[in-house]
């Protein structure tokens, strides 16, 4: 297994479009790194540069300390799982998995052992004689995974491997991949636009937008301490509430005012906001940190009450979501399924101010978490 290092890596296309800009990342052995971001953010391009399927325009890519910018894909000792699986349609499942080994002139007995072991791990033993056209989407996906495993590479690259599967299978395969990572102890780089996949699989997540890396962090840090407005909005579903608010100072306390509502910022966060007094900032609060009256709890540090009108109520099973209007903005909140609030109700909510995020309106960078 291997360490990777990307230093100032960039990709500029012949037409001048910059797909990836100044990408810097150190990936440790056995890490499970996720590249996440909306379509066109450069995540797949970065992965393909690591694979050698795209040229690197600037910067250096090292695998285990060796610069591999100009090394052929086959000599980088990596395996890739493609979004459309890219299985060889004319080969059986067995041959698909054995193919990279055959080309490396591994002896037949050894190939057989490796392929059968990979098939056993992925539960493909009964399908070894089938051609890809006779397999379901989920089975093809497993074969693609098997081909990568049989190859025994230093690094696994996965380009949205689950995006063609139905929701149920996706959840199942997600767990499989997670187990696989533990079992193989492999370095994996995984591209997805699905933030649930990113949060559940990754040891670290790289959030990208417009070819620029926004934040690299563990899933929990990314969720609780997003570095800017984009990351805060991208990670978490339903997304974080954002409200334009004016920073004020009253009786030595820092306040945020939106519409007729004013909330007091806890002291721990007040200092960072001092320079912004009189200015408009963006307050961010996740739906689960917006607490409805019926659910006020002692252990939470709640803000002043905010009046809201419920416009949409969605029962999700174990919990419910409400969307409502407050003076100066709109807000969504998690409720317990037993909460009696319904559409059209006039309710009171409060923010768990310990979980309040504030962003600079100009730079969109986080001021305080």
């Amino acid at each position, binding site marked *: 297994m291997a360490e990777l290092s990307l230093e100032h890596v960039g990709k500029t296309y012949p037409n001048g479009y910059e797909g990836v800009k100044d990408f810097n990342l150190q990936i440790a052995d056995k890490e499970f790194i996720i590249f996440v971001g909306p379509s066109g953010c450069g995540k797949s391009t970065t992965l393909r540069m690591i694979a050698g399927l795209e040229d690197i325009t600037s910067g250096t890519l090292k695998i285990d300390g060796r610069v591999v910018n100009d090394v052929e894909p*086959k000599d980088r000792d990596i*395996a890739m799982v493609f979004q459309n699986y890219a299985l060889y349609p004319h080969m059986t499942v067995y041959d698909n998995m054995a193919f990279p080994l055959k080309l490396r002139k591994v002896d037949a007995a050894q190939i057989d052992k490796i392929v059968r072991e990979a098939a056993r791990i992925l539960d493909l033993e009964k399908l070894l004689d089938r*051609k890809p*056209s006779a397999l379901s989407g989920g089975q093809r996906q497993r074969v693609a995974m098997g081909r990568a495993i049989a190859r025994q590479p230093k690094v696994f690259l996965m380009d949205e491997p689950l995006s063609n599967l139905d929701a149920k299978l996706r959840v199942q395969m997600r767990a499989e991949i997670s187990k696989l990572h533990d079992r193989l102890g492999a370095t994996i780089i995984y591209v997805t636009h699905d933030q649930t996949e990113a949060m559940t699989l990754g040891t670290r997540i790289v959030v990208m937008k417009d070819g620029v890396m926004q934040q690299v962090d563990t899933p929990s840090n990314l969720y609780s301490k997003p570095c800017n407005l984009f990351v805060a909005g991208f990670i978490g579903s339903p997304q974080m509430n954002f409200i334009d608010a004016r920073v004020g100072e009253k009786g030595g306390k820092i306040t945020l005012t939106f519409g007729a509502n004013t909330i007091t910022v806890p002291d721990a966060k007040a200092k960072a906001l001092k320079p912004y007094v009189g200015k408009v900032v963006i307050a961010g609060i996740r739906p689960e940190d917006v607490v409805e009256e019926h659910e006020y709890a002692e252990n939470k540090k709640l803000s002043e009450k905010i009046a809201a009108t419920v416009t949409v109520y969605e029962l999700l099973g174990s919990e419910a979501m409400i969307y409502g209007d407050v003076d100066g903005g709109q807000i969504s909140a998690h409720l317990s399924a037993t909460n009696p609030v319904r559409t059209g109700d006039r309710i009171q909510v409060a923010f768990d101010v310990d979980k309040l995020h504030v962003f600079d309106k100009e730079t969109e960078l986080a001021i305080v978490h």
Partner: protein
Amino acid sequence: MANLAKAKVGSDRNRTFLLILIPVLILFVAFNTFPLLTGVFYSFTDSKGYGAFNMVGLQNYIDLFGDARVGNSYLFTFKVAVVSTLITNVISLVLAMGLNSKIKFKSAFRALYFVPQILGALVVGYVFSYFFTYIVPALTGTGSILASTEWAWVAIVVVCCWQSIAQTTIIYITGLQSVPEDVYEAGNLDGATGWNLFRYITFPLIMPSVTTNMVLVMKNMLMVFDQIVAMTSGGPAQSTESISYLIYNNGLSGGQFGFQCANAVIFFILIAVISVAQTKFLNSREEQL
């Protein structure tokens, strides 16, 4: 009511389809099936193509197998067909790979290589006849190969290939484009490059195009005619007499109408059998993408 209305719409539509199909069917039967059947009938006669004739039963067929000229025309035709089919397919495949790669002026090159297809075979034959009669001898200082009983067939092969490569290449390009890009990429990562990539990935995946081209080119080459009319008229010394040319020449102006009809029937059956056999054999090697 709804069902009735649907049935009415259905029958209207069927009538339109029939109106489209029937005239074509009549034309096809009149100018293809009927002459074919007439041909089969005449193959059992001693018709000269005009005047009275007698029924001779299977005599024409029996004579065919003993006729040295017919035998030679079969040998020549198959030699040209097999060699041309192989050469055409190999060159077309190489060209298609070139024209399918990321090169500059790709569209212009594709158009250029397609030109032979839009030229008439006779025109091409006459141009090449000039080329082999005057230009090649002037360059090499030797005689024209069209005058050589030993080498004239090579000239026919060259012309046939030159012209059929155009369409064959287009079919190969289409085949190559149907192979998903990520399969090549997976191949690259797995260590298949150059010859290995072609042998293990590209070629097996374009087998459907190979089948189509092998069958089409073989069929066309077996029926080689125009090029011979334009270049050698079957000569020298009947060394480039193809089956089609012999049927045409001796059947229509040589007083052997009945006899050559029998030849045509045998030839028809032969081409049908070869095409079916080829398709069967090659289809078994095709893969579902």
